[in-house]
């Protein structure tokens, strides 16, 4: 889990070009969207693409998306549960 959290931090910053955010700014239990990080609904869709590409996890409807993107930890758990590429 910790390893995935760290990997996701790097990938999120890189994917969204979060120029003024460092990895330590992303608290695994804080709101990922709509908070201080400046991540909005368009960014979430960009992350959906990244997660499908990197982890083979498809996040389809926006209702599921809201829960999955509630926090970094929620996102990591969802990936761990659903990724064919990662051991559970």
């Amino acid at each position, binding site marked *: 889990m910790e390893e995935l959290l760290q990997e996701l931090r790097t990938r999120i910053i890189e994917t969204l070009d979060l120029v003024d955010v460092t990895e330590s700014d992303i608290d695994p239990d804080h709101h990922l969207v709509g908070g201080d990080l400046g991540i909005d609904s*368009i960014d979430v869709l960009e992350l959906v693409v990244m997660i499908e590409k990197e982890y083979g996890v498809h996040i389809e409807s926006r209702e599921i998306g809201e829960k999955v993107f509630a926090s970094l930890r929620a996102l990591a758990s969802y990936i761990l549960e659903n990724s064919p590429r990662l051991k559970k």
Partner: protein
Amino acid sequence: MKGVRVFITGMGMVSPLGNGVSETMKSLVSRKKGIRPLSLFPVLHGAPLPVGEVPDRTGGDVAASEESGIILPRSHRLALAAANEALEGSPSPPDAIIIGSTTGGMLRTEELLKEKNSDPRSYSYHATGSIGEYLAQKTGCSGPVITVSTACSSGTAVLKLALDLIRSGRARSVLAGGVDSLCKLTYHGFNSLQLIDPEGARPFDKDRRGMSVAEAAGMLLLQGGETVPVSAVAELLGAGLSCDAHHPAAPHPEGDGAFRAMMAALNDAGLSAQDIDYISLHGTGTRENDSSEAKAVACLYLDGPPLLSSIKGATGHSLAAAGAIEAIVSCLCIRDGFVPGNIGFANHDPELSLVPTVQSRNTTVKSVLSNSFGFGGNNAVAVLSSASGEGNPSRSDVAPVFSVKGLSCFTGAGGIEKTLSALASGASVAGILPLDEISEKLPQRSVRRLKRLPRLALSLAVAARESAACETGPDCISFGTAWGALSETYDFLMKLYETDEEFTSPTDFVGSVHNAPAGQVAIWFKSTGPNMTVTGGDYSFEQALVTAGMTCRDNESLLAIGADEYHQALSGLFDRSVCMTGVMSDGGGALFLQRDNAGSGLRLRVPFYSGGTEENMERMVSALGGSGRINSDFALVFAGMPAACGRRAKEQLENFISASGFTGPVLDYRSFLGEYATVSASATVLACNFVKTGTVPGIKGGPEHDLRGKGILLLSLGKFISAVEILG
């Protein structure tokens, strides 16, 4: 002075419901759905999504090539089919053409880029603006052509401009409409935004999950007159525009902009909400649009709305064509006494205050409100009415005067100060400014998702308002760009191709629409007035200035922006002048203006814009007040002569000089600003600055010019001609 009324006297359309107006209406009356799985191009992953495709035979022969041997994109063929139907029986070509399109020849360009075709000729019909130009050539129209690219509101926004052209007397007849063909950009783009309903669009239904992307073309022939022509189907009473200034892709959650556009349209039409018998809703089927539109309608009708429905459950959402085909359907509702049922609606959504008219019905319809909303928060609404009423005779100004309050430009040398000092030292300023330098004054976080064109536009806008030293405004925005956001478009397609069409970037899709930069500017300044993006090749900025006079009211402030980006892979393929000269340059200019007919001080006016014929050159000289006035008011001409129009532009300049007897110096500004489509925006900004200071420095070793208190006349030459007056 007596006003004119504007009548719809011809209509043409091709849509997923059929070939031609009557076939489409027959399908609509019999509740046929035109939405089925995509077959126009193969989908490499998953099942094809439901879309609205025009039946194959309507587009004409796919392999048919022009006299030039260049394959014509599907959108051009759809547009011509609709235009021919609209103009059937019309004794003469329209005086002007105004076309809405979001993707132009993109479907063909996608194929060409995929096969790595490097012949610029093959891309001749890529530009959104090329559709209107093609129709002008086919119909014999030698007047002005304007191309609106305000995403999904384009097909209704064109009606606002057409009204003004006729009300001001600049045209008696206008062919106005919208077109978009399906293409990979929009198919995969809307899918990446998770805005596609896998079961097909179900507008306003409780379980709706999105839209169905579609294609269509709709064309209306509008004619001005004081009496009702025999061929009148309906009257265009008025139209209104607004901007949400809220989000690049999502509508305002309370429907604020939609409400204001409906109010503006009713005011323009001289009607109240209670005079409306039917609302043709935008109703795309996305959760956000339908909720926002329902709230806007509820605000307008506190005691409940009239009959209302969206036809997009049957046609899908044909983007820039949607407003035009819905305006035509509205005209037919008035003519035939019919209201179409909202196809796809089964269950009432308790979260919506709106229940659409489900079953089609026959009833008298006198007046219709037709809604279109789009990305960038762009809203456009038209009011159509029975031609047998008293009508709404109106007049508008031919060429309103704008006071110039603020200026900014970007050239290869930098912003306006650096540009002026480079020019004063005799250097050329053509070139490409590094990306960081363009947006150095904008917070990094605000521009992290913006690539080159939106950064250019936003930085220009911020600098122009700063130089105007205004605390508020602009009320309105008018943006001209020939090619739109090339970086976003290219990156979107390349990511799609590199992943075998499995993945792409939703951010790039949102940024790829031509009106995205103007949407960013609106959000930045909270500019909720009309927000226009026009895309007419080398005349895009000129069109932005012309439309500024049509959308901005007395005393309102307006930002007129022109910008284009140089793109390593695309500029040389798309822009013939870049291809011919190899000059790499980009940039643009912005003017913070105030409409003020009694204006004093630095002021700007566009008395003429039309096709580049000899007769039009004579008309232009007379619109400028003839030889005497030209020589007494202007000390110098700035000429815009695109390399691709070299010989023609030179001849036109000679004709101008011989017709006007102009004796002052003429400067070809592309020789020192570079070859890109909206270079005239930088030139206009510099001309304003020179008129203010009274001198033009010695450019590239030439002599300095004392303007002796006179103004500068900017002439754009080539395919189209225009005159922009700058007076001190």
